């Protein structure tokens, strides 16, 4: 953390009718920090965002911005008095206003506002485009205008709701980098809501994994990937092959033989082992004692590739390998696990 908390969410509950969407959410965001809320669709992450922005009312708990409570069970500060900027999906630019008026919407009219609009246009790389209409801009440009509009009034916090999901894959990474460069340059505090784990892991300082209306784990991206605290987080963050096994002491036995463990692990008994695809090592011409299987599929990505292998006992695994060594479909390969794996208690 790099400063005082800008946002403090405490025990927030929210239900729509009989359906409870948020079951006690806690979340802190420090000044200048970019936090990603990562979860599958329907996990309640957009609802959380709308509660922070003030578009919905919470049922229990509290939300404070800059130490001032803006939402509690008793009162609710309207969105216009929260100093929380919003960048929605697809930008939601005002279609009847040009780019400069969109950016200046939240500013009081005057020479300072004009200067600020120019400054923001420069910041998002659209200098000289102020008189264009939103429909004359590409999707990525629209997102940058939406960001400039949200940042112009110097909000305490900016909320980005799946801001890149409407862009095509080729543009996505580029626009994402541009947007987060702008956020970092502006020193803004921001929350990014996304279902794209790669997006969350690559741009955020910290990531909150949200599953089924709860924050399952909140931490640095590498910690989430290397040391997930639950099987659900391990499965959701990064690819994983799950293997049933039995744990005795510090090692576990499964269809891949005896594997070493890392991190905290449960006491002896039945477990689920989590192997990341890059932990597998494949080799040609397996001997009779090697664990082996048949290549049933391969995907080539240029810099590397994945290979699907059906082990002799029927277990299906996905391995990531260097592109130069991709085996052919139908080839027989031996499989080894090169590094310690994660273990979680098997749920009955």
């Amino acid at each position, binding site marked *: 953390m790099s400063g005082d908390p800008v946002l403090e969410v405490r025990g927030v509950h929210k239900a729509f009718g009989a359906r409870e969407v948020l079951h006690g959410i806690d979340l802190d965001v420090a000044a200048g920090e970019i936090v990603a809320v990562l979860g599958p669709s329907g996990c309640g992450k957009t609802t959380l965002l709308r509660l922070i922005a003030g578009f919905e009312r919470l049922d229990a708990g509290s939300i404070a911005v800059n130490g001032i409570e803006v939402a509690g069970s008793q009162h609710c500060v309207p969105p216009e*008095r929260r100093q929380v900027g919003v960048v929605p999906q697809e930008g*939601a630019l005002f279609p009847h206003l040009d780019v400069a008026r969109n950016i200046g919407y939240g500013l009081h009219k005057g020479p300072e506002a004009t200067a600020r609009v120019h400054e923001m246009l420069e910041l998002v790389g659209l200098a000289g485009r102020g008189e264009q209409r939103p429909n004359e801009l590409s999707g990525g440009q629209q997102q940058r205008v939406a960001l400039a509009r949200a940042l112009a*009034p110097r909000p305490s916090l900016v909320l980005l709701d799946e801001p890149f999901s409407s862009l095509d894959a080729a543009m996505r990474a580029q626009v994402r980098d541009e947007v987060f460069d702008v956020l970092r340059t502006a020193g803004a505090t921001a929350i990014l809501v996304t279902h794209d784990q790669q997006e969350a892991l690559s741009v955020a300082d910290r990531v909150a994994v949200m599953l089924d209306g709860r924050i399952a784990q909140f931490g640095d991206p590498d910690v989430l990937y290397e040391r997930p605290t639950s099987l659900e987080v391990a499965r959701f963050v990064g690819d994983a092959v799950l293997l049933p096994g039995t744990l005795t002491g510090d090692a576990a036995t499964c269809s891949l033989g005896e594997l070493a463990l890392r991190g905290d692990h449960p006491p002896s008994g039945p477990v689920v082992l989590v192997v990341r695809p890059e932990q597998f090592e494949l080799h040609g011409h397996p001997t009779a004692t090697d664990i082996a299987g048949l290549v049933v599929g391969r995907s080539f990505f240029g810099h590397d590739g994945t290979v699907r292998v059906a082990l002799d006992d029927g277990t299906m695994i996905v391995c990531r390998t260097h592109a130069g060594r991709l085996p052919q479909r139908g080839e027989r390969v031996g499989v080894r696990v090169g590094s310690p794996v994660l273990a979680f208690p098997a749920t009955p």
Partner: protein
Amino acid sequence: MKRDRPPLALIVPAAAASLVAVVPIWYLVDRSLDRGVDEVRDELWRRRTLDLVLNSVGLSAAVTALCVIIGVAAAWLVVRSNLAGRRFLHVAFALPLAVPSYLAAFAWISWRPQVAGFSGAVLVLTLVSYPYVMLPVAAALSRLDPGQEDVARSLGHSRLQVLLRLTLPQLRTSIAAGALLVALYVLSDFGAVAAMRYEAFTWVIYGAYRAGFNPSRAAILASVLVLLALVLVIAESSARGRAAARVGSGSPRVGTPVELGRATPLAYLFSAAVLLPAVVFPMWRIITWVTESVTADVQFSDVRDALWNTVKLAALAAAATIVLAFPVGVLAARSRGALGRVFERSTYVAHALPGIVVAISLVFVGVRLLRPIYLELPLLVLGYVVLFLPLAVGAVRNSVEQAPPRLEEVARSLGNGPMAVLRRITAPLALPGIGAGAAMVFLTTMKELPVTLVLRPTGTETLATRLWRHTSVSDYADAGPYALALVLFAAIPAALLAKATR
């Protein structure tokens, strides 16, 4: 956006508007009970009352069914087919809006008196009111995602199956809305049924008022009419179902027009069968009258004054109605509470009232409460407001519903309160739709007769009042110039409305 309570700055004017709209109900209740509850029961139990209900319901059902068929077919032809000249036809199909029902009726009666009765009333009312179905359906058709049709075709559906299983169900909302307008219009129309001597409710109510001997009978009959209208409004909101919102963000594309091929002559035949009796015939009659009137005693200055009064009143009515309809329409579109619905529904009540009942009830209120403006311009404008609020409320609600709520949320997060968002975002986005609503009120006011006749300031003549005075005594030659001026000038907003739905 979910708000716990809409701002007072909206609720107060909306409440005022719905209060204005229910003024006639106050009058009706007061008058109906004049002679006690027994009188009400006796009046309702008469065989004649049942006959009147059946007459009006039968007329309304026949006209509505015909209007739906003609309106949907015409809308599809001008929006989705490759018919040459469909842009011209789109405007031409809307032109009957410029022809007042009583004028169309007199055009027929003066030519072939034997059409009088049920068939004549059906003919005239269908020809003047099918645009109420065609315009909203054409607008909805052009908003549909043509990608859906392509997908359905690729899944093995024929054009006809696509029309029946995909297109028509999505048009349900706009067909239901248009059908409601037509049904209510027919129930409350007075001019055409009077000219056609068809014993509908309105004609009998008018008779009861005019004879003056039994105002409470007229009030009781008018109350039955209000109940019929209420049933229609409820039926429409259940037929409307859940409005199917456009899914996905694909930018709207204009679909490939459907090749008519060998059906082309049929399409032209249909267009001619509608436009000849609906537009060409009344114009021919009016021009005949005008040529006869060269010898008659019509002063040009009288026509000019009447035209000026008509335009002035129509502009005032359109402005006042939109101002009052705006808060009601916004609440109906944006607030999920019961309050918005109550306000909206209350404005629909007056829609089924014959203009004559609205006029008499405003006389009642004017004499009691608004003495200073009685038989002055403001009371007349108020009468138009009561009559045409539903048209304007519907237009405001529809156009506000189409402005994405997300834009309002963003504006709130940028520091604007609800009223500032309304002014800076919602209103500008809804402006084209609201403008179309204003044009509709303007047009309908130009043609309006009973309220104008009863509430106009002494000595004020409009095109409609002049026209009525001459045609009702079969003095068609003198009516000619007024009829021509009315139809020509009403054709302007009618054509604008057709363009707005393109």
